[in-house]
């Protein structure tokens, strides 16, 4: 790893950690309100913080696999059949996540900004830009993602700042008005939504520096996202009220449309649209990159670009076939509730087990 690589990796870790978790949750996050009740804005950061050990576990496992993906641990440990099983599942999950997110996102854009444009056209454009960002590999993608994440965060800050004058305290209280079970369910759902970050880190953590500083940066990124997502949701609820916010499937965009500070300013939803577009493109790049990099690692680095194009075409075909917000919403909530967290835990546990086997066989 040369000077440039070290510098790049360290400084981009927080933004990448943040961006990797900003999945469909930023659009359908309000659905959490239906699960967790009024305490949902607290369940959001709680769920994200819950993932910290998984991220750190990922980093600690990657110490022995510098430059290679964590799936290599299976090969010498519990066997290559398991490895291919996990790789296959991993790629399928990534592609499904990609499809669900693009469906949710494109329908949102259509509803608010491009009423007469077909969904497939919006998906196609997003896909092309995502491919452009992911096509040249890890470093260039991370550079672009860092810049875009900063700009998206600033854009979100603008809308939140404008939202503050219309913020009403009575809209968010009573914040603890839900049962423990509801709160727990909400926390787990939030963890499931943000678990996409762990999925991305399974593919890229071996490429990050193996220092304590890197781990600290990961923690900064995760905690930063937890605080930011919490404040964002809190302000949104404070502006429109809990009931209206939770009943709207497009969350923050509807809130932004209702903000009219100083009477003559309107159209602030473009400040929300920008982070949505950035998140959709960045996340699609991540899904495609994770899948393509693991396939090309197995079958040769040269096939990375053809593979990523084929995967993009597959995702586009699936999106064009489903073409509905509801499908995306159902897939996304299903994955967040029942699949992502268990998959990450099982995969990381199997990797750890495999590592143990490796170490014992090496000792013998």
């Amino acid at each position: 790893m040369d000077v440039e690589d070290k510098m790049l990796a360290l400084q981009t870790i927080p933004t990448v950690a943040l961006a990797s978790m900003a999945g469909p949750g930023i659009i359908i996050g309000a659905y959490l309100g239906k699960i967790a009740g009024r305490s949902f804005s607290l369940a959001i950061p709680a769920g994200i913080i819950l993932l910290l050990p998984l991220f750190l576990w990922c980093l600690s496992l990657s110490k022995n696999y510098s430059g290679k993906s964590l799936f290599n641990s299976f090969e010498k440990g519990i066997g290559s059949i398991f490895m291919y099983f996990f790789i296959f599942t991993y790629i399928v999950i990534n592609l499904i996540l990609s499809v669900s997110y693009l469906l949710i996102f494109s329908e949102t854009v259509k509803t608010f900004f491009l009423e007469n444009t077909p969904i497939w056209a919006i998906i196609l454009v997003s896909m092309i830009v995502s491919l452009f960002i992911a096509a040249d590999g890890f470093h260039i993608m991370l550079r672009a993602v860092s810049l875009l994440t900063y700009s998206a965060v600033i854009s979100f800050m603008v809308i939140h700042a404008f939202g503050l004058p219309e913020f009403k305290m009575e809209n968010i209280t009573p914040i603890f008005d839900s049962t423990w079970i509801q709160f727990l369910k909400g926390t787990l759902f939030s963890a499931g939504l943000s678990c996409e970050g762990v999925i991305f880190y399974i593919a890229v953590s071996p490429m990050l520096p193996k220092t304590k500083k890197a781990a600290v940066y990961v923690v900064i990124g995760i905690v930063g996202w937890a605080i930011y997502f919490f404040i964002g949701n809190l302000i949104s609820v404070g502006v429109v009220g809990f009931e209206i916010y939770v009943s709207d499937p497009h969350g923050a965009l509807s809130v932004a449309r209702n903000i009219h500070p100083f009477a003559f300013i309107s159209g602030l939803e473009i400040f929300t649209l920008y982070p949505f577009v950035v998140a959709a493109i960045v996340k699609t790049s991540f899904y495609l990159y994770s899948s393509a990099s693991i396939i090309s690692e197995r079958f040769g680095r040269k096939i990375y670009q053809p593979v990523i194009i084929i995967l993009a075409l597959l995702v586009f075909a699936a999106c064009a076939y489903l073409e509905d917000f509801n499908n995306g919403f159902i897939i996304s909530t299903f994955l967040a509730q029942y699949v992502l967290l268990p998959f990450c835990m099982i995969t990381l546990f199997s990797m750890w087990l495999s590592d143990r086997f490796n170490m014992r066989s090496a000792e013998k």
Partner: protein
Amino acid sequence: MKKYTINAKKLRNRRSKHRSEDKIQASIKNGHVYTDVEMNLKFISDSLCKFTGLVTGEFETNEARKKVGIAYLSSMSDKDFINKGILEPLLSLQAADDSYNEERLISRIKKNCIRTANIKESDNFQILINEIIGGNTVVFIEYSTTALCVNTRKLEKRSIESPQNETNLLSSKDAFSEDIETNCSLLIRRLNTKKLNFHEISIGKLSRTSVKLVWVSEVANEDLVEEVKRRLEQIDTDIAHGIGQISEFIEDRPLSLYPKYLQTERPDFTAMFLSEGRVGILCDGSPFAMIAPTTFWDFFKTMDDYNDTPISVSFSRIVRYLAFFISVIISPLYLCFVTYNHIIVPPELALNFSKGRENVPFPTIVELLFMTFMLNIIKEAGLRMPGTFGYFAGTLSAIIIGQAAVTAGYVSASLIIIIAISAITSFSISNATLVNTSRIFNYTLVACSSIFGIFGLFCGIIFIVGYICRISSFGVPYIYPLLPYDASGAKNTIIRAPFSILRKRPKLFSLTNRTKIGTKGITHKGGKNGR
């Protein structure tokens, strides 16, 4: 048939002419200087017969009774020096014991006779002819098979003038000129150290243009210097027009939309970059220096940034970045408002827009593209026309397009305002190359917005960001030192931190010698404790 015979005759004549020229070329290649001065001069005259201004002369020294011959190009040589510094002392050459030992005689002439230290010896006609073409004077001595090449080059040149394109308020007022030696002296004046290195390369099989690579040793990355040298030496072209052409030959991706090298006419700016560990390239006949590697942020820097207070400079830089952003984005944003997303404009403003567009017969995209294109034409016309005509063209177009077109109802007034803002903001960018780039991106975003509205605009912006992240200049990422982050350099990108904080050189420019400013003499807290 007759016609054919005539043609064949002509052809034969041409062939024989070519053959004789080839003979001369061959003899030049293999030819050695004769002992007879007359033959040498004849050979030179035959070889350079097509050159106007070739002067040859044969003389006899007063006491030594030796024949000497000189040859030079009057248009490129200093005639006064030739008369006083070469001919006069040669003619009064004293007879001595060494008069029959040519080697010793030549040595005596070099040491005691010709009044310059810049003398070379050669026995090869190829070299001698090249020296004459280069403006030097060749001296033949009777019975000697070695000739002397005396540096008498003197070209008509511009005096040092103030910069035309990079005017600054608080910085020096001198600019590079077309003469490479003068440009070197301007750099030496600012970097008066033995560490300043010049590596000269001749580029162009026909033009043999002198190109100099400049760097500060122990500061610049030696690998980078070697790489630039290698790339320069690989250039295979007939003619080197100027620094822009050379830059294109050596850059990574010539088809890149962003400029990947910085052209500057300011010696102080060049010296500043050299002191950071970058390399410069000077080209004879070009009043610009090329700086490499270059990053995106360098195009927004001016020399005034280093002669003003940090807060004032930071403010100016932010204004420049915003201007660049506005110049690229304002017209596509207007297109989004008018065509797709009316709701995102305050109702009063939307009404104004639609009122202005009431009688316009064209769709907004046609109107916008037409006006943007017209503006580019006016800009080009203003640039290419001589002084007063340029101003005249500008004023005339402003009246016709600004008033008449709106009154006639061809375009809306709001569009004129948007186009004018876009143009004016693009002019506040300090680098001319980047202005053109901003125009290209403007067109791209207009196209994106016309198809997908605000969503298309955002996708276009993300595409451009992705594009910038892919570019590198001589291996250095284009958005360095912000990404990859380098604290020492990052504080001199969007803002300019006080010098007490900018103590280190960016890592990727200078790997070894990184300290630029010491703590001595800095009394305030930032200096002693600052990183």
